[in-house]
Every structure is written in structure tokens, then in C-alpha cells.
């Protein structure tokens, strides 16, 4: 059995990966994702975790036919830049074919399988975005 990816690293990030936790600077008010211990805009260390909105707009996206190793089964991989209003997120777009996507469309976050760690079998989950399912 060989394990390629660090388990502690994944474990430390899991809440951010599952629930889209960003950072909010108490000093300048900026919200950012991924969260850091210090504000990337003003340098303050007064940062509180903040759960980001789960819906936003798909600013732009690309369909990757030659992704890095480890994502072959998901190829072509759709990568989107999503604007959640308070912050932006780069993520995979799922549950849609490329021709169903449009810039500016509403999308929502879901938790999905990102990759499997070879023979170790550990499955990594995190956020992806899909076209917003309208509730009647």
C-alpha cells in the first residue's frame, strides 16, 4: 500500500473543503478564500472564520482535456471561477456537460469526491459547484 497524499493535511483542511470556510478580516472587513491566518489585503492577524454563501455566479470556466495526473476518470475536467459575492472560489464544475454552462449562470456548492489515493484507497472530498437546482 502506498499513500501519495498527506492525511493530516487533508484532515486539517476538511472543514474548509466541506463547508467553504473563508477568512474575514476584523480590521479591514475583507472576506477571502482560502482562509489565511493573516489578511492578504491589510496584514492584520485578527481573522475570524466565516462560512461563505453556497450559491454564486459562474464568472468564467474552462474545459480541461489534459488535467494533471490523478483526475483521468473525471476528464474532461471543468474548472470554474465562481463569484460568491463576498469572495471568489476556483473549483471543479460538476453535474453538467460543458455545453450546458454559461458565463454568469447561478451555481451552487456541493460536496463531491475529488480524488482517490491510489492503492491506499483514501477518498478525498471537497466542494465542487453545479448549476443551481431551482426549488419549486
Amino acid at each position, binding site marked *: 500500500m502506498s499513500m501519495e497524499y498527506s492525511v493530516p*493535511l487533508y484532515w486539517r*483542511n476538511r472543514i474548509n473543503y466541506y463547508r467553504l470556510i473563508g477568512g474575514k478580516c476584523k480590521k479591514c472587513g475583507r472576506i*477571502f*478564500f*482560502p482562509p489565511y491566518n493573516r489578511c*492578504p489585503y491589510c496584514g492584520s492577524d485578527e481573522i475570524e472564520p466565516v462560512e461563505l454563501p453556497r450559491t454564486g455566479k459562474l*464568472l*468564467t*470556466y*474552462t*474545459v*480541461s*482535456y*489534459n*488535467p*494533471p*495526473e*490523478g*483526475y*483521468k476518470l*473525471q476528464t474532461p*475536467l471543468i*474548472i470554474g*471561477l465562481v463569484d460568491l459575492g463576498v*469572495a*471568489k*472560489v*476556483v*473549483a*471543479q464544475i460538476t453535474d453538467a456537460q460543458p455545453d450546458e454552462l454559461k*458565463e454568469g449562470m447561478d451555481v451552487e456548492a456541493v460536496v463531491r469526491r*475529488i*480524488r482517490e489515493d491510489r492503492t491506499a484507497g483514501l477518498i*478525498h472530498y*471537497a466542494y465542487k459547484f453545479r448549476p443551481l437546482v431551482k426549488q419549486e
Partner: protein
Amino acid sequence: MGVYVKSYGLTKLGRSYFKSLYDLVNDALSDMDDTTKPDLIIVSSLFTSTSIGQLDLASKIAEITGYKGVPAIRVETGETSGHNAVLMAFRLLASGQYDNILLVGAEKTTEFLAARMYKEISKVFDSEYEAYMGVGHASLHALAMKEYMRRYGKTHRELAYWPALMHQNALNNPYAALRFPVDQDSVVKANTVSDPITLLDSYPLVDGASTVILTRNPNSALAEIKYAAAATDVMPITHKEDILDLPALRTVYNRIKEESGGDLSIDIFEVTDQFTITPYLIFESIGIADKGSSVDMVNNGLFDRSGQYPTNVTGGLKARGHPFGATGLYQLSEIAGILSGTFPISMEDAKEALILGINGLGSNASGILVGRR
């Protein structure tokens, strides 16, 4: 106190399956043909702990170059590693701490299948929130390219003037990896890597090595390093204020301009054009083109070798190739060669050249101002 390029050596970029990284360094050293003993060696390489499985590469380079005993360090700042190796050497020489520094840039990117290298290369972006999601080098540039085309109403074909120009420029560079012409239509129609980026919008994966000796001794030097500067910006692209802006590179450019008395007269630009979109972002970020206007300027020939801003006259990363850790040293070697008339491509009236490099979409930026001797 001045800092000068004493000599340089290069290998032809390409897929060197039958040569090791050390063979390539040896070839560059032979090409340089300079036995000046350095009092410091600075090595620039990104992927060697994966590609050839070696740490403390600097010591091994010192030994295989015949300079066992000389202190040696390695610089790694992603795609600007070579540029920052030059910056470090420039400052150390200018401060009088050393007299002669040997710079060695070397990279092997063909030791594994391309998908494995793409995974390594994706780490030049944020590892835990971008590379982790399967976002590759081309994909983040593709997001920028698509956003650029949308915001300014430009077509892929218009942008493709750049790769066609680079292939044209590389025809005369014997060290270039891709020495064949392409036209704008074939760029657009090539296989898609990450849309809209096609194979011909992208740099080729290559192996190569470059060696440079920087010195404080002005006698018989090829060129002068007039100034070098660097700056950093946010790493995740989601922290950027604007995906199309490179503020760290603007800081570097303005710093170099200030250092030159507020006025720059650049005869040759040499920029890191990883993908078709990258040079446009660079020109608009440093201000030699207004936002959204660089595509028209490029299409009007302003960045051709005979234009107002001759850029990447040896083919750029696009056609010369992008040997990552060695890229900055290829740029410096070629520029020093052109300014001194020792390179196969000549530009007789050129007196000053500016080398600019970015990592990713601008998390690290570096600039080197080079003058004719």
C-alpha cells in the same frame, strides 16, 4: 560598482531522453567555455526532487562542474527561479561579498509522462486549494484568457498573432525547441488543452541547461546587469483583485524605471510568455499598453523584431521552450549574446534590454535590466 555578464552557455532545448540533468549542465558548461573559478554557485531548478530525486542539488552541481569546495545554494521561486537567482547574484556581487558567481539553471521535464509533470507544474499555483482540485497550469491561464476575450471583445485568432510571431522568431535560434512556422489559424485549430488554450497556445515541455558567470570585473565582459528587482503578490488567484492584473510585475517595472532615473529606453523586451494570454497581461500590467489595447498593438506589429517594442526575438517560452528553473538564465544568456553580438540573432542598434518574469499569474515577479558593454 558594476555587475557584468562574463560568459554564458546553453544547450539546445528539447527532449533529451538520453542525457541526464548533469550531462546537460556539462554541455552548457562546455558551450560556455570559461574556466573562471567562481567563489559562489547559485543553482536554479524546480522539479529535481521529483524528476531526478535529488536534494542538495547545489552540492552535486558543484562537484560535477569541477568546483567541489565552492559554496553552492539553490534558489526556487517557481517560474521566476532563474530570474531570482540572477537577482541574488547581482546583489551579492554589487555588495562586494563575491567576485565571480556561477549561475546554473537546469531542468528535466521529460523523465515522466506529461500528466505527471502537469501535476508537478500545477504546484506553481496554490497547492491546497487550486492544484488540489485538479486545476492545472493551463487551466488557470485559460480562465484568464477567456475573461480577457470576454471583457475586451477579442477573438482567439487575434490573440494568436503572438504564438505565430514566436514561432517565426525561433526560426533563427539554434537553441530553440520548436523551429517551425505556424499561422494564427493553425493555433486556433490545434488540439484543445484547456479551452480556449490549444497545444499551440502553450509552451513545450523541454529539458535544458544554461550556465552564466556574473562578475565584478568589467574587462572583456559581454553585458552589464544594470539593475534587478523582484516583488511578490497573492498566491491563490481568488485573492487577486483582478485576474488580468499583475501588480507585483508593475512594482518591479516601476522600481527599475525609478532606478534608471525615471526613464527607460528599452530596445528589446524579453518576457515569460507561458501561454498566449500571458504577454498581453504583462504589457498591460506594466503600462506600455492600456488595458485591452495590447492585442491591437501586437497585431499591428509593434512587438515584432522590427517594431517599436521588439519582444522575445529568440522565440519566447512559446517556441524556444520553457525549461522552468533554467528559463530566466536562457533569457539572460540570449540577451547578453544579442547585445554583445555573440548570439546567432543580431540586433546591432540594441543597447538596453529588459527581462521580465512571472510565476503563475504573477505571485512572484522579477525583472533584470541589461545593458550593452
